[in-house]
């Protein structure tokens, strides 16, 4: 007979350690059947990113970090998932079924409690000081790794305000191409009918001559970048890949699966764009600034997000695109667990949540934890620079390397942030 002190086999031991930690919510045991054990699958390999930016401050309690039973939870109900210990707001009826694909960070914190500064910090890892403008992650990716597609832009922003994603001090060609309404494709990119090829070519020649003159006069970096932008636009006009921007060819059932609103259609467009090798697509969804009527408003907003995000994850995975596309959902800050007297929640940068999927992220895990009220981080805090460093690490961007602004000051992609490597398989 085996004496009781016989050591357990390693897998059982691992199971027990994990189980003990999972009880504590420190890290969660992935479902046994998933093959994503360390050393088994490729690991971090993102080269594209879809950034779903929740503009206005997304309440963590009503979305990714609910606190069932707490007085602060309010009216928002809670749903469990296949993974023990991962619960979401009950508004995420579809998303709960995708828990194997995503990881949560429940210990984000920011130093900025106002929208504009918080937004800037989230996008750049820096505080806005003086006249310097810092590049957002999409611009860094465009600068460091370059475009993947010969004609399409590397960086696109859908439904995004114009002060979010930006090239900052990098060349203007790393600015995102803005798309206002995802349903109507790329505006001004189709040549008017009365302009034939020859006339278009003549116009371009004249433009180039003008630019060259300007460039000679001032050797102005801005002029060169604009010339490049025109050239890019012209290439784009002639490219058959322009259809990447058109949603017409998508079947009606799929459009409905994403949700017919701007955000849903924006997510569908984002999938088309990464499918055509656009590197970075930001899709914005506003309406999160729920100082009043938090619960009624989120009962509308979260299902819209749930629909689009769930369709996006299913669609990307079914096409194999999730292997190399990092999908990230984040906001500039969370909202107060304490409910104010207008049944609203106010700005709360002390603790909030984000979701990551694809690009080598190991799904079904939670990093970090808040206490029973959702007010304090009790494990594994992640700062905004740490968060961006994590995304940059997934994308294979150098974190230590210094890049110099035109004024000669050194900057790093995520400032001094340190990546959370354990999120990757």
């Amino acid at each position, binding site marked *: 007979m085996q004496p009781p002190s016989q050591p357990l086999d390693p897998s059982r031991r691992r199971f027990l350690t994990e189980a003990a930690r999972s009880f504590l919510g420190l890290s969660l045991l992935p479902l046994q059947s998933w*093959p994503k054990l360390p050393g088994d699958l490729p690991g971090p390999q993102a080269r594209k990113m879809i950034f779903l930016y929740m503009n206005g401050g997304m309440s963590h309690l009503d979305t990714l970090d609910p606190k069932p039973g707490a007085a602060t939870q309010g009216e928002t109900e809670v749903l469990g998932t296949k993974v023990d210990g991962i619960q979401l707001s009950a508004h995420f009826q*579809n998303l709960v079924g995708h828990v194997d694909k995503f990881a949560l960070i429940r210990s984000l914190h920011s130093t900025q409690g106002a929208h504009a500064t918080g937004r800037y910090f989230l996008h750049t890892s820096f505080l806005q000081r003086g006249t310097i403008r810092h590049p957002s992650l999409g611009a860094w990716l465009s600068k460091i790794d370059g475009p993947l597609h010969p004609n399409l832009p590397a960086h696109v922003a859908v439904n995004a305000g114009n002060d979010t994603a930006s090239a900052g001090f990098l060349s203007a060609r790393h600015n995102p191409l803005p798309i206002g309404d995802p349903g109507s494709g790329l505006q001004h990119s189709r040549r008017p009918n009365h302009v034939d090829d020859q006339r278009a070519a003549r116009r371009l020649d004249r433009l180039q001559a003008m630019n060259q003159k300007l460039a000679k006069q001032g050797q102005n970096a801005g002029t060169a970048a604009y010339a490049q932008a025109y050239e890019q636009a012209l290439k784009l006009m002639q490219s058959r890949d322009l259809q990447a921007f058109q949603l017409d060819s998508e079947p009606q059932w799929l459009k409905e699966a994403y949700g017919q609103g701007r955000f849903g259609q924006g997510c569908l467009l984002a999938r088309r764009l990464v499918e055509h090798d656009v590197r970075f697509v930001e899709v914005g969804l506003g309406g999160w600034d729920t100082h009043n009527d938090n619960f009624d408003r989120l009962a509308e907003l979260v299902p819209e997000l749930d629909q689009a995000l769930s369709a996006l994850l299913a669609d990307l995975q079914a*096409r194999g695109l999730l292997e190399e596309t990092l999908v990230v959902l984040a906001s500039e800050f969370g909202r107060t667990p304490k409910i104010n007297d207008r049944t609203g929640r106010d700005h709360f940068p002390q603790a909030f949540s984000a979701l990551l999927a694809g690009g080598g992220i190991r799904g079904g895990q939670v990093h970090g934890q808040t206490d029973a009220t959702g007010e304090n981080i009790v*494990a594994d805090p992640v700062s905004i620079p740490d968060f961006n460093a994590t995304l940059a690490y997934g994308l294979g961007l150098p974190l230590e390397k210094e890049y110099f602004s035109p004024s000669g000051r050194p900057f790093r992609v995520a400032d001094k942030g340190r990546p959370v490597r354990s999120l990757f398989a």
Partner: protein
Amino acid sequence: MISLCWLGLFAGFNLGQEPEPVDFASQVLPILKQHCFSCHASESLGGPKKAKAGLRLDGAGWILAGAKGDQVLVPGKPEESSLWSMMALPADDPDIMPAKGDPASAEEIALIRQWIEEGASFGDWRGEAGGLTIRKGPAPDQPVSVMERMAKNLEPASQAQIKKAAGDKARITPVRPGSPLLHVEFPHKDRGLNKNDLQRLQSIAPWVAILDLSRLPLKEEVLGQLPKLPRLIRLEMRSTGLDDRGLAALPPLAELRVCNLFGNPIGNASVKKLLSFPQLRVLYLWKTEITEAGVDSLRKDRAKLQVHWNPKFPAPRNPASD
């Protein structure tokens, strides 16, 4: 003290009962409080300003975190748990814990051993968590993925080899910064792909880990020219028009883990070919002609294979009804 623990277990067996599992909060915690907290707890619980050896025993998270990265508790393995073994040392050993004061009794030590053996459950107890950060996952220098494992001890390809392989069409980059493994793709989809483009990869064959042929027209004659790629981990062939004969033309790929065949006219005739890749773990088959029966036979043969072929999309939402 070991025999005590054995006795306890055997007594249980003899009576035909399950031995009562040790309860952390009522049985183990008092022992730690009495003998250890004066040095291994926060100040508010009677501990020193700075916990000795960086080890705190006043919270479940802290106990699992160990002493500055050294694990002190391995559930199920008392011998590897210094939490127990340092208490169980002979009384005159300079390393015995508690470092000062009365040693724990044999019964107390046995109880801790039993608790660890049973899996070291904390029950509902959590204790202190303030200030806790735990590094999870493998240490940074440990290979975490196939990609890292295969990159080990591999000299990088020379620039000349890479240039030769790229010709005027392929874009060849490291899979990750600093990795010798290579990612090969053909960005100009409208220029198509011919035999030479794939033959040329011969000069970098040992380094190709990801090959992306998506959205290029793929024919049997062309794909048949693909050299054996001993480290190919991921092969992307979505929307290429590839059929069963084309797929059959692929050489053996010993390390292939991920294969994307989305949107191709591949049928059940390809099941056998797919099963010939010994390491295949993830397969994308949506919008192919492979049927449910085909998918079942794949899954039957490979329990660990993930097949994505029938995605579940959210049902359309009713417009808000007011």
